[in-house]
């Protein structure tokens, strides 16, 4: 399957990845190969097969609505590059 340079740049942008021209060529070829391999699945006859999202036929892994002990702000923020007033500091986002 042929993947264009534009498609690679589009997907990279969605994933917030910077890729240079050399990487774009390489990734286009690799992703093309992966998709061609996945295309093999198209050959399988799926007539009458329900679309599946899980390999195992399980449903309803549910939890009762009971509060558990909290980790606490200190632990939650332990690996934050920057914090202030018990909150994560990030570059300003508007909206």
């Amino acid at each position: 399957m042929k993947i264009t340079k534009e498609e690679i740049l589009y997907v990279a942008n969605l994933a917030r990845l910077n890729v240079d021209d050399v990487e774009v060529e390489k990734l286009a070829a690799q992703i093309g190969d992966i998709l061609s391999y996945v295309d093999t699945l198209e050959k399988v006859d799926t007539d009458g097969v329900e679309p599946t999202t899980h390999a195992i036929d399980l449903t309803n892994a549910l939890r009762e609505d009971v509060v558990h002990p909290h980790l606490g702000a200190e632990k939650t923020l332990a690996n934050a590059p920057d914090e202030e007033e018990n909150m994560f500091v990030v570059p300003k986002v508007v909206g």
Partner: protein
Amino acid sequence: MEYEVVIGLEIHAQLKTNTKIFCGCSTAFGAEPNSQTCPVCTGMPGVLPVLNKTAVAYAARAGVATNCTINRVNRFARKNYFYPDLPLGYQITQFALPIAEHGHLDIELPDGGTKRIGITRIHMENDAGKLNHDPMRPISLVNLNRAGVPLIEIVSEPDMRSAAEAGVLVRKMHQLVRHIGVCDGNMEEGSLRCDANVSLRPKGQEEFGTRTEMKNLNSFRNIERAIRYEISRQTDILDNGGEVIQETRLWNADKEISTSMRSKEDAHDYRYFPDPDLLPVVIDDAWYDEIVKSLPELPDAMKARYVETLGLPVGDAEVLTSTLELATYFDACLAALGTPTPKQAKLAANWVMGSVLALLHTEGMSLATVPVSADMLAGLLTLVEKDVISGTMAKTVFEEMAATGKEAKIIVEEKGLAQVSDTSEIEGIVDTILANNPSEVEAFRGGKKKLMGFFVGQVMKATKGKGNPKVVNQLLGEKLK
């Protein structure tokens, strides 16, 4: 040119669960920043979400209450985008198979008619964290206490044709989610939020125009104002031969304008796919029945019952069903009265809407703690009904009940407030009054009929207000002939 306005709403309601949708962190509002967090809701690597059963039940309740079909098998999907308030890098929501769809709600129009608004779907999802923008420095602070709080998003069909209709739907939805106990409806705290999709099309045209999405509408007033603003903005563009750009706009309540929120090059491509970490949700017959049974009588049904069975005016029914608590109080009062006649029902309604609501407003009490319970109010009304006390005296007794928490009957006994209906007792008093005021009696008989008020007043004074006005009037009438 004349345009037709087309409006669809997306209403986000936080579910009133104790814990978040995929972890056991508390959802209590107003806690210290990031104190209600854990590895799941902060998106740490390797953690797995586990769905809150109550959140599913509440979402399904909302679906049933809006006449939706409940998808007995529904599932979660990932909506991928980056934003600092979304630690996972994706929102867990429902896409292909939401919990509820194809519903409707009838709204009341100002002209007295009703209009059916389609409910496209209701899906479950997690809320994002809260961003605090520093006014001075180029930083934002992230608080993840809200991240993972369960939401339902209620999506309407583009069935509304004015800002007023949109306002009615939001109010109705707000009342409904509170009534069925799935959302506290606190708009200041963001428990209920609304986005509006607005477009215009030339009158008579079938095809929809380009729409914009207005975000951040967090009060009833803002919703209608923002939509009106957007209608005039789009009208200006179209009248001047321009084209409306499909975009998300943010309402600024202080400046009363909206601004474009996201630039064009930031294309939306959410790449939804089924979340492999969450299993499909199956609502079997037993669970479905349990959910249906958990619903109280819905506001529209209550209103219809008050109007059709009890004969109450529509306006009264609206007030009494404004909250479930008030309607429950009124119903309890009716039940204590037995099988009330329309006259009794109206009397009870007047007391609930008058004295009881006034007590709540002036004393800041809730119906749960109000000293005059529904049973006690019924006791008071029974005394009025049986002519033990007059309606005027009942007001005094009610005040005493509110102050002391005592039953009406006890107060009437203790204070000797029962009205005197015994004809012989009142007759004696009437005779004395007439004997002491011979000139007034003469004047009355001579044609000064206005003096009747004077005689009634004298008798009431002598009985300390306890004389049964009917008996007093009757006796005076007979004796003054």
